[in-house]
């Protein structure tokens, strides 16, 4: 009698093992994976694990990461006019832009003491509702979309995003409000 193969799951009684559809690991197509690995040197480990399990469809972190990767993985010769313009901006111009934004308000911004100028500029961009919602979308993609719709988003924001990507800071693509809104707290955890 042939040796019985071990059963993979407890199905209805019978000698045949049943197919299990519950734990199937769906892998994203390799092109997105290659784009991700190409554009980022350091990569945060938890989004990567989510990436192979294709949870990008329901949680925003992996989806935002893949959106950012697609935006940045364009070959060099396809760089748009805006990107070339943004790369020419100097540190001084970016700081001048931020000073002008701060001058628009009478009181200084609170809870922003520990942030650098880059993050402050990006948070202002996130909160500008005329460019659309900032949650569930990568900052770069949001900028490109606003530009395409003719809303004239500030070029300094694009400059800051490109600089941060060059430094390898991939967490910059996700808006801070996005992290706040999708934070989960399990009751009982300290």
């Amino acid at each position: 009698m042939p040796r019985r193969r071990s059963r993979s799951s407890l199905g209805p009684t019978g000698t045949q093992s049943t197919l299990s559809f519950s734990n199937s690991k769906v892998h994203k197509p390799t092109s997105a994976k290659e784009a991700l690995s190409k554009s980022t040197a350091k990569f945060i480990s938890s989004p990567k694990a989510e990436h192979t399990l294709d949870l990008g469809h329901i949680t925003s972190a992996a989806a935002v990461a893949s959106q950012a990767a697609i935006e940045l993985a364009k070959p060099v010769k396809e760089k748009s006019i805006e990107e070339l313009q943004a790369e020419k901006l100097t540190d001084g111009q970016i700081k001048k832009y931020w000073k002008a934004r701060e001058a628009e308000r009478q009181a200084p911004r609170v809870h922003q003491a520990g942030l650098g100028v880059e993050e402050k500029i990006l948070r202002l961009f996130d909160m500008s509702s005329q460019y659309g919602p900032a949650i569930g979308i990568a900052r770069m993609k949001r900028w490109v979309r606003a530009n395409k719709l003719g809303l004239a988003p500030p070029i300094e924001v694009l400059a800051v995003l490109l600089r941060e990507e060059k430094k390898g800071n991939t967490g910059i693509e996700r808006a801070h409000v996005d992290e706040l809104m999708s934070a989960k707290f399990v009751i009982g955890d300290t």
Partner: protein
Amino acid sequence: MAIPEGPGNMLRGPMKQEHVCLERQPSLYKSLHTFTLQKEKHYQQQYGDMYFLRLTKLKPVVEEIAAEAWDGLYISGEEVEKVDRVLDVRQGKLCWVAGTIYMHMPLKPNILTDIAKDHWISAPLPPTKYLSSSSEDIIMLEDESGRIPLTGSMLDREMLVTGCIVAVMGTENAEGVFEVVDMKVPDLPPQAERWNTSEALVINGTKKAKVEDADEDMDVDKPVPGIRKKLAIISGLGFSGTFSDNSLQINLLTEFLLGEVLDPVTQASVSQISRLIIAGNSIALDEDSISHDTIGNTKKAQKKYGYDASAYNPTPTEHLDNFLATLLPTMPITLIPGFSDPANVSLPQQPIHNAMFPQAKSYGLIPAAKGEEQQPGWLDTVTNPWDGEVEGWKILATGGQNIDDVFKYVEGEDRLGMLEAMCRWRCCAPTAPDTLWSYPFQNDDPFVMMSCPHIFLTGSQPKFDTAAIEGPEGQKVRLIAVPRFSETGELVIVDSETLETEVVRFSVCS
């Protein structure tokens, strides 16, 4: 040997009468892929992006119209001023602002009723209209900054649903409600001329040679004048595994379209029909296979591979496949999915997969060789909503879900009025994503009509209706509401030169 043709002689020679072999007119056709979704779909984004995209696309248009009408206008000594955002409206100040309409209706599907369904035996039946008889419905104007409720007699006259972009002029009263004096909609988008809508059309899947003519800016041969083509549209065929009373009507329909019945004159006119568009609901909804009660369903069906195989009935798709395979050898068909068809639930519905049609799929898409352009197959399964070009006319067709949803928001039964309102709002599914399930678009809202179609048709309607509307820049749109064939037995035929419609009704004397 000559046959003597004397009286009483029954023998006759072969007939010398020549029979004209009728040929069907070729169809000049191009299907646009405006509503096709990518294979990899993401659902983590919110629907707020869709509203933002719609508002951004249509706000400049409606603001231009409003500025033309209201700039410099004085009402009782006060000048009307433009306000950028809804929240910038000041109390007592006469102003105008553009935004999205949101209708707050308590009868709309509510998550709380879904939860109630879990605790009771069954949920109450969904209401036919969301309009409540008392004044519980609030109409609001919304944009990124906020919302403001609207009031005024203007709102009763104008048809409004959630998701349409308007500009309103008026003032905010003491209760914080905006009293509307006047309202403007984007109105019909710019319309291209016939044959000018885009590049070369394709005849039935074979590309015509480009006519190199420096003077003309269209590179397609116009058909020989004198041969008028027609377009046949049908909807709601309703093939079912359980209900077969209309099978004789379907048979008559097939024979009519094949040109097998009636006299040669009618057959000649049938040969002018170059294409059949099936606008949704080819397969009827099977009520038995849907279980409505969650509690009390003690009979557990035997589930193998995760679904109950005994509830599946393959006969409806077999009937549809036979119907298509009978017609396809002679005429190209465009198949648009509907609410009850085997396609995805949310708009835009993707084309029905070729695997559903084992016989008809051989007439389907043939993958193009490298370097060649992809030609549509004789059987073209398309999205819902669908836009394409047939005989040079731009057609926008839907399976009926958008009109049925708008119907729930407004009073009355005037479906053609709703079609016209959609054209004037420049949005073919304004209630998506509020009450009409939709894919969460993040880059572009394809429901916004950027160019005006020549024919706007919707399927699965209770009765046939048609009208021709005009726009401010001379745009002309033919609106067609196609009735359900399973109920009315009617086939709509559109003349491709004048866009006049005629109806052929198939009925069985009982």
